[in-house]
């Protein structure tokens, strides 16, 4: 009896987990299925689960509904440039905060933490006016330079650098290594996990960003993919869900493919940044 009960409990446990999994994964499968259906199929009742003939033409239609090549190029340039600039700014700052004692160390570091607390949703109006004064609104820079200092990155990297033993640095100095060499040959290689986490975080948040490009851009020439896809709803009318979902697949697929191959590392990186 006890044995049977345990067996039943196991089956129930499995079943609930399967349902939970479906709740989280199904919307993505549904998106893919819809993106390959005809308009008639999307309006069927009961719904069409699998399209009779995959409508690849939906993707062509979605991608020709706007300048998607430009959107895609902008997304790539913005994301990559942000990551490169953040590295160049973050590494020396984190090193100085971690390894030097200087007047104002604590003060400046608390300003970094303060910056971490103040969201772009509060500062976007003045930043917009400022960048308008600089005359760079119709370039990609308004979507790049405001993110040059990654406060979270500086914080995480500083913690990491502090754990690297001072003896290692001292012995490198005895070998006549200068600071640049110490950072390049010791600090960076030993902080790869932290740097990977920060980079991944930056990539995901800027590739997916919607708010900032929405409030900073006035012309299609500088808009990223997220804005382009969201705009499909206006240009395609409200009932063309198969076209909208096709566009959506284009936005999501690169990230889903990367995730399918490296989900363990990605989850670890995100969770690590959450508990530190």
């Amino acid at each position: 009896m006890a044995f049977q009960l345990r067996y039943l409990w196991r089956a129930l446990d499995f079943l609930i987990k399967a349902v939970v999994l479906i709740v989280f994964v199904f919307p993505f499968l549904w998106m893919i299925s819809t993106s390959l259906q005809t308009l008639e199929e999307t309006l069927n009742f009961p719904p069409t689960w699998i399209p009779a003939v995959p409508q690849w033409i939906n993707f062509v239609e979605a991608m020709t509904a706007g300048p998607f090549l430009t959107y895609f190029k902008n997304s790539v340039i913005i994301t990559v440039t942000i990551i490169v600039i953040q590295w160049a700014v973050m590494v020396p700052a984190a090193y100085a905060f971690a390894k030097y004692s200087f007047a104002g160390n604590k003060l400046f570091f608390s300003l970094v933490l303060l910056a971490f607390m103040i969201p772009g949703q509060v500062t976007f109006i003045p930043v917009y006016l400022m960048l308008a004064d600089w005359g760079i609104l119709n370039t990609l820079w308004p979507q790049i330079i405001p993110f040059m200092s990654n406060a979270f990155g500086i914080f995480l990297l500083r913690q990491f650098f502090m754990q690297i033993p001072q003896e290692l640095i001292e012995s490198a100095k005895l070998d006549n290594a200068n600071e640049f060499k110490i950072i390049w040959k010791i600090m960076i290689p030993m902080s790869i996990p932290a740097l990977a986490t920060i980079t991944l975080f930056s990539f995901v948040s800027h590739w997916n960003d919607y708010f900032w490009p929405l409030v900073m851009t006035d012309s299609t020439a500088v808009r990223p993919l997220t804005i382009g896809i969201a705009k499909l709803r206006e240009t395609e009318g409200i009932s063309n869900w198969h076209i909208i979902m096709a566009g959506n697949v284009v936005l999501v697929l690169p990230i889903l493919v990367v995730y399918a191959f490296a989900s363990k590392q990605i989850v670890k990186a995100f969770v690590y940044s959450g508990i530190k």
Partner: protein
Amino acid sequence: MGKKTFWEIIRPYVMIFPAMLGIFVFVIYPVFYLIRLSLYKYNLLNKAKSTFVGLSNYKQIFTREDFYVALTNTIVYTVGVVLITMLLSVIIALWLNKKGFFNGLVQAGIFTPHIISIVSIALVWMWLMEPSYGLLNFVLKSVGLPPSKWLQSSSTAMMSVMIVSIWHSVGYYSLIVLAALQSIPPSIYEAAALDNASKFKTFYKITLPLISPQLFFILIIMTIGSFKVFDTVRIMTGGGPNNATTTLVYYIYKFRTTNIGYASATGVVLMIIVAILTFVYFKVLSKRIHYQ
């Protein structure tokens, strides 16, 4: 230690300079600029015509009904999303707290929405929640429940937006709680088992205090994050129907071109709310949290 050379003295400042420049120019200066803007009736076309109006924008905020609607909506959203997500996260984490292939699969599955753009998620859920052809109403009808108008009725729109937000973030927070659970040394549980402590008592007396730093972290991050909610609202409802889902940031966004002074004053209010929340949490909870 010999005497420091001039270069050694200024070196740290040189190294933090780019980072501090970014923070000053794009965070700290804009905060002061925002406060200044909030005291003006700003003329976007001709800056010289902007006039100083003192606290009049703030007076306007507190007498306008639509501001209170936006504030109430934001509070309802925040409390709902934070409480439900935290509760679900703890339940899911406790339940997945065993190694195994299937548990790993469920973990990867529930985390997926977190790395996907909110634009995509909003669009997929709009399609699922479509009143006539959407899948959710099909499911409701097939189990004999009445269909809902979801985003298109002012009585259910906020709930629908909240469902999407919870779905988006619960996986991430579950995994943080899970990581916290797994960092508890098993010897503690063995000691509790020796004392014949009940499962509930073990959870309440041992597990909960030990994971409280992470729960505290989640509470802060989520509350502040929820107060900034914008993307889902902008894409899914446009603040409607009938302002039912207009949140604070969406409210600021609406006025950002037509009335910059007023939008800035509302921005200052948002900033103060976020600051107070952070401060109160640190004060109240620092006494009750077990730090390792």
